[in-house]
């Protein structure tokens, strides 16, 4: 597929742009992109439109392939891409349309404390968390699993964490799928993938993974915020990480298997490598992906338990007072029903956003909609939103996942030194801790799109509703 520039887009509604199906004879469906003019101008400089069009050529792809406003170039499906395949029409499953970091996701923890309580304790809190929670690459976890334990985690996710008292029952209630995809099968995860995961439970990893102590800066919907347990000046904690090396290996293993399989479907980009969902190989990957997803939920849960332990020790705070608001996955494939059809929805850098009334939501949120957590880049705001019925109608129940990168890491490093950036962030009242100075610069706010604009698009387009804005106080960068 040739490069696609933004002048090929047709505006069909405010914030919705389309590349029509007849743009390329191989496309089975159109492409729809949620963006403002400002965001489109930024996207135009990478290959994400082309990658969406490539995905639109896959057999069994349903209705349209979607790009969220945080979209950026990746491989296979771009980051910020959503693609649904129709299971009854030999629907395909594509590991590269989920990504290597299976169930990379984010959770938000609520505390009883406000900024007045925490401000003179913040440095010490950040330092303690930094020493407690392994971050950076190669950092092994405090927990070393054996083969039996890792199989149990792969198969049962947060249920195992609850059994071992690393989770509270509320944590299962407030995670997608209850923190356990029932399709998981540890037998479909290779010994090599398991080996990589044995010492990685409870680790942040590196890159754009982080733990952030934030303050609720603004409330946009007071009534919903109260029901979610959010209020201005409240201290909250974001945790962003995924399935670590275990998940990466699952994706690597299955891309290889599919490329070598007679069931492989012809694709314009080998990273879209796909096979029928109902084939043995398709089911094997789905079960392995589900197992890796369970590992990721368990990883975020282990970190949560570490955080609760720190609060208990420092502030005599019972663990149940550090509450999970919600945990969302943003690299995953799920079987969901839309327009009376069973679809396999691939979200790669996109968040599920179910609206009010959806039976898959916990009872406490059913009248509100699903909490959607959109972390900004290091040093910029993050947002809490709610999913909507309109998202279910228009975007296969999906919305954005973050700010979306604009700038290469090399370019970021040329803009500013680590020490200058740290000073700038310190002057804004943000404490940063990281094992890698280069890593800090790579994640600087200017390397990402404007998160306020990304969130404005999804809110204005009606696919998520803004509830609260969070600002960072302290960041532990992976």
């Amino acid at each position: 597929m040739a490069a696609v520039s933004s002048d090929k887009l047709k505006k069909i509604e405010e914030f919705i742009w389309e590349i029509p199906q007849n743009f390329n004879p191989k496309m089975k469906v159109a492409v729809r992109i949620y963006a403002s003019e400002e965001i489109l101008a930024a996207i135009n400089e990478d290959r994400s439109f082309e990658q969406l069009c490539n995905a639109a050529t896959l057999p069994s792809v349903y209705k349209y392939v979607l790009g969220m406003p945080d979209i950026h170039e990746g491989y296979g499906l771009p980051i910020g891409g959503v693609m649904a395949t129709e299971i009854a029409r030999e629907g395909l499953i594509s590991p590269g349309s989920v990504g290597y970091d299976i169930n990379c996701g984010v959770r938000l923890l609520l505390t009883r404390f406000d900024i007045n309580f925490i401000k003179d304790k913040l440095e010490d809190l950040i330092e303690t968390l930094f020493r407690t929670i392994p971050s950076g690459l190669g950092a092994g976890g405090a927990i070393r699993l054996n083969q039996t334990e890792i199989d149990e985690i792969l198969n049962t996710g947060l249920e195992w964490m609850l059994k071992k008292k690393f989770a509270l029952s509320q944590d299962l209630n407030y995670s997608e799928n209850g923190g356990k995809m029932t399709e998981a099968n540890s037998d479909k995860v290779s010994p090599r993938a398991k080996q990589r995961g044995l010492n990685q439970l409870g680790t942040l990893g590196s890159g754009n993974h982080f733990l952030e102590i934030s303050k609720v800066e603004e409330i946009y919907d007071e009534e919903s915020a109260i029901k979610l347990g959010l209020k201005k000046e409240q201290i909250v904690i974001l945790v962003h990480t995924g399935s670590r090396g275990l998940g990466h290996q699952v994706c690597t293993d299955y891309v290889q298997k599919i490329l070598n399989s007679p069931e492989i479907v012809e694709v314009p980009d080998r990273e879209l490598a796909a096979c029928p969902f109902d084939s043995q190989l398709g089911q094997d990957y789905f079960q392995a992906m589900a197992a890796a997803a369970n590992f990721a939920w368990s990883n975020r849960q282990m970190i949560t338990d570490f955080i609760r332990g720190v609060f208990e020790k420092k502030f005599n705070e019972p663990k149940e007072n550090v509450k999970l608001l919600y945990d969302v996955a943003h690299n995953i494939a799920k079987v969901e029903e839309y327009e009376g059809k069973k679809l396999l929805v691939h979200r790669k850098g996109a968040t599920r956003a179910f609206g009010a009334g959806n039976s898959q939501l916990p009872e406490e949120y059913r009248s509100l909609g699903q909490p959607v957590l959109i972390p900004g880049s290091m040093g910029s705001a993050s947002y809490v939103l709610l999913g909507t019925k309109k998202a279910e109608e228009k975007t296969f129940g999906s919305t954005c996942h973050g700010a979306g990168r604009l700038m290469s890491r090399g370019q970021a490093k040329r803009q500013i030194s680590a020490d200058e950036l740290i000073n700038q962030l310190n002057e804004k009242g943000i404490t940063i801790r990281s094992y890698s100075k280069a890593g800090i610069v790579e994640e600087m706010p200017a390397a990402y799109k404007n998160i306020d604009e990304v969130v404005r698009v999804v809110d204005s387009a009606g696919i998520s509703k803004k509830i609260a804005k969070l600002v960072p106080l302290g960041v532990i960068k992976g």
Partner: protein
Amino acid sequence: MIFKILPHPADLKIEIEADSLAEFFEEAVKGMYQGAGAKYQENGFGKIENISLKAKSPEQLLVDFLNEIWFLSQKNQEVYLKFEWQKINPGELSVRISGKPLKEFETEIKGTTFYNLKIVQQGNKWQTVIVFDI
């Protein structure tokens, strides 16, 4: 022989050129380690490992090789920059690699992708551009 890190908004993109297939594969490893910000003990000694792979295409062979090297690096906490080739052609390789103890990686290679991967041979020169998910 060269590798060059190219701009990419999110991932690691490397251009590789070499005068032989063996050097080409070695440069790909070096580029991957540079992109990962590998720091190691220059004077240290690590493990010796043997890698034997077959693939349907040189692209698949390269991806499988880089994934294998990364796996061993993670498992043994080493980097591999010394290669003794027993066999290498576009569909098969067999090599002994020697490690040096790793101090740290700054960036995690999540996977070696096939995105737009095409290995071009012109005479003795081998060239490609490869993208890693980081």
